[in-house]
């Protein structure tokens, strides 16, 4: 693949990455076979088994909280659903471990999806409360529905599985099995972060509004995250039940959910490794502190508080910061020239609004605007502060549903489409107050834009190619690996433009692209917009710099109090008496000299 060759890490960093990976693999294999070769006491065996099964469940929190930013306080409930499925399946119904496990995972997935579905209507603290309610319901059912669950007595005599030709009845063999499952899950969760889905999740976490506008189906992403998290909770629980052969409802209470959450946070919730470190530590810490007898709980609590205070990003977060692990050095990249993959023919008007209105209570922010944007043109929207410009842009990109009127793109009515559907239809935009995904690299920000629905490319290599092209176009390709938050304000605006461009939109909406740029940088922006126009892109922009608008706009619409007060070429509009009175003031800002 030709564009794959464009993106290769520097040879040195690849060698060290391979070496690091091999060391890790050898270490991992040693740990996995250790239980088989070294005699372990029952006590140590149990502790390791608990650590392995808990980590699987806590990795679910890495996905839902660490990657997607949704607080779930019901991980113990899913842990319980998996555990009870295996317990009741093998003990009461005699359907064997594997079938019970499958049923447990399906049940967890369904419950997780339902929990995720509630995120359509509620978010933040309220969603966290819904998860607590769900947790309490599960606990109540486990305790009270005695005929099915055996109630507070719990279930004993849970069987361990057989693999073809291999019995896992032996504790040491079973521990090895759990460690192998943990590796698989850990690797999958670690890898998830670098996939389309993982990037979409992180985009939702960092800025849900912007995620929708650049094409992420935010709702589906959240439901998926909850489902994955629930399945991992269920899987951990199933392994746990089989490992300890006895379970009871108190092992799956709300308090346990809090323990799971603490494990994730202590280790570093955004990293699969951190999760493993945190879980291991919180299982070992009470054992290490046992000699303290009465004050053991106080010391345990204090240690947890100290770790949280001094390492807010968790242990792994701190390690990452010190050692720069996981931050790949800038790759030697020569992006191909940027080229827009969009249809340049069609109706003469790419965008048309009819009687578009948006009221907030009594405030008529946009009040019956008719607008026609010509294909391939640069169309500027100007007007006093508070005249409704940004509101209009928000209605166009689907963040607000209009009170009245319609929006037609390419002859298709898109009035009722969600932001990500409009993005798929070819609308890209930037924001007045920069909305980037702050914890992601510059490249990852642009990749989220590149992977928009309806895009003609799908492979990771092609996506990266597009992202680098867009970054090259705005002149930031060399800095691709840096964290986006480290860039100065003006360059962050360019990343937003690149993020929109990487999705190859047919219509680009820019909200004050020139804000925060000095006159020379504005000249560069004018050049960039001219080049984009040359690529056949239609640009609809808001800006207050009339010298800049006059240079690039083919057409200007002036808004005041939500209504259109003037319309036409820059030459006519900027000399319109009403525009001068309401907006321009005495001297139109004719820039240089």
């Amino acid at each position: 693949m030709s564009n794959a060759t464009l993106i290769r890490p520097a040879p040195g960093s690849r060698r060290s990455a391979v070496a690091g990976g091999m060391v890790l693999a050898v270490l991992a294999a040693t740990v996995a076979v250790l239980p088989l070769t070294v005699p372990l006491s029952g006590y140590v065996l149990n502790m390791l088994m608990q650590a392995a099964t808990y980590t699987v469940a806590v990795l679910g929190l890495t996905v839902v909280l660490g990657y997607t930013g949704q607080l779930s306080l019901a991980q113990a409930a899913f842990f319980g659903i998996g555990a009870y499925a295996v317990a009741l399946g093998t003990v009461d119904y005699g359907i064997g471990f594997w079938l019970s496990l499958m049923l447990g995972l399906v049940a967890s997935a369904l419950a997780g999806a339902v929990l995720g579905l509630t995120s359509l209507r509620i978010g933040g603290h309220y969603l966290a409360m819904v998860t607590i309610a769900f947790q309490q319901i599960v606990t109540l059912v486990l305790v009270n529905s005695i005929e099915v669950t055996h109630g507070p007595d719990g279930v004993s005599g849970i069987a361990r599985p057989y693999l073809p030709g291999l019995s896992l009845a032996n504790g040491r063999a079973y521990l090895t099995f759990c460690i192998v499952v943990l590796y698989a899950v850990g690797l999958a969760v670690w890898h998830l972060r670098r996939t389309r889905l993982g990037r979409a999740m992180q985009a939702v976490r960092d800025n849900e509004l912007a995620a929708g506008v650049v094409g992420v189906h935010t709702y589906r992403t959240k439901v998926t995250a909850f489902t994955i998290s629930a399945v991992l909770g269920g899987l951990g629980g199933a392994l746990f039940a089989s490992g300890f052969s006895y379970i009871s409802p108190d092992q799956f209470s709300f308090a346990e959910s809090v323990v799971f959450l603490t494990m994730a946070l202590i280790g570093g919730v955004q990293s699969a490794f951190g999760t493993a470190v945190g879980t291991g530590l919180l299982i070992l810490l009470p054992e290490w502190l046992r000699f303290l007898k009465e004050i053991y709980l106080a010391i345990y609590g204090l240690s947890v508080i100290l770790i949280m205070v001094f390492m807010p990003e968790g242990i792994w977060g701190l390690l990452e910061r010190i050692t720069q692990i996981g931050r790949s050095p800038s790759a030697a990249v020569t992006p191909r020239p940027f080229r827009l993959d969009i249809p340049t023919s069609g109706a003469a008007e790419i965008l048309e609004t009819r009687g578009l209105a948006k009221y907030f209570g009594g405030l008529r922010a946009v009040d019956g605007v008719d607008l026609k944007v010509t294909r391939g043109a640069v169309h500027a929207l100007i007007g006093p502060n508070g005249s409704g410009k940004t509101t209009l842009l928000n209605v166009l990109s689907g963040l607000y549903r209009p009170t009245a009127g319609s929006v037609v793109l390419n002859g298709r009515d898109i009035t009722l489409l969600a932001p990500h559907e409009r993005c798929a239809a070819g609308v890209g935009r930037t924001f007045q107050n920069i909305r980037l995904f702050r914890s992601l690299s510059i490249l990852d920000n642009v990749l989220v834009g590149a992977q928009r629905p309806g895009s003609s490319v799908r492979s990771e290599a092609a996506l990266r190619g597009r992202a680098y092209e867009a970054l090259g176009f705005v002149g930031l390709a060399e800095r691709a690996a840096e964290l986006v938050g480290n860039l100065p304000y003006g360059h962050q605006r360019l990343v937003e433009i690149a993020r929109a461009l990487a999705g190859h939109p047919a219509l680009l909406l820019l909200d004050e692209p020139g804000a925060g740029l000095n006159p020379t940088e504005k000249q560069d922006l004018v050049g960039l917009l001219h080049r984009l126009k040359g690529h056949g892109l239609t640009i609809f922009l808001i800006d207050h710099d009339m010298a800049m608008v006059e240079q690039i706009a083919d057409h200007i619409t002036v808004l005041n109090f939500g209504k259109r007060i003037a319309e036409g070429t820059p030459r006519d509009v900027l000399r319109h008496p009403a525009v001068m009175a309401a907006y321009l003031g005495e001297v139109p800002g004719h820039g240089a000299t």
Partner: protein
Amino acid sequence: MALLELDGVTAGYGAVDALNGISLRVEEGEIVTLLGANGAGKSTTLRTISGLMKPRSGSVRFNGQEIAGASANTIVRLGLSHVPEGRRVFPGLTVRENILLGSSNRSRVPRAELESDLEKAFGIFPDIRKFADAPGWTLSGGQQQMVAVARGLMARPKLLMLDEPSLGLAPIIVQQVFRIIADIRARGTTVLLVEQNAHMALSIADRGYVLETGRLIVEGPPETLLNNEEVRAAYLGGRVAAG
């Protein structure tokens, strides 16, 4: 004695030095502007002066007192007010509350005096008067910028530092803002101004400094900077004459 004096100030984020030995001074009653490209370190300079960032080395003297390393809270009480870029309006508070918060550094101010200062602020920005009791988030971006500047004025500072006060404002309001800045100085407040709108900034400034990647490269009165070909090319949108 200069009101504000920086001597060899170095500061940065992580491993990178954003400021590399900055020395500048602002005399009482002056308007001084700081120009430069994005990422040159203009905002970092203001953040270092106001205590939002700690300098790694060098000294910052305000009114004869060393303030390098002091907390932002202490520095604002000495009469140094900073209006950061990007608005920072408290979304849940009303516009009135947002603006009144700016006076937190003044102790035991009579109610009537606060009301009269508030009234002056609304006099300067009549467009936001009608939103006095509306929560901050309901304002448009440009209106929020007005609230932020009004809040900075409520501190009645000796030195007011403005970081891109014209960002996102309509041309007619930008003209007002610059008139207001000149007016603020006429009333005795010294102003240190970071502004991308270099022409506007130089039209009211007494002196300007040009920053490039953490170093000051040129200093002088507006005419000098406006006539400096390099400065024109790099920051004023002008082109260096061919040949």
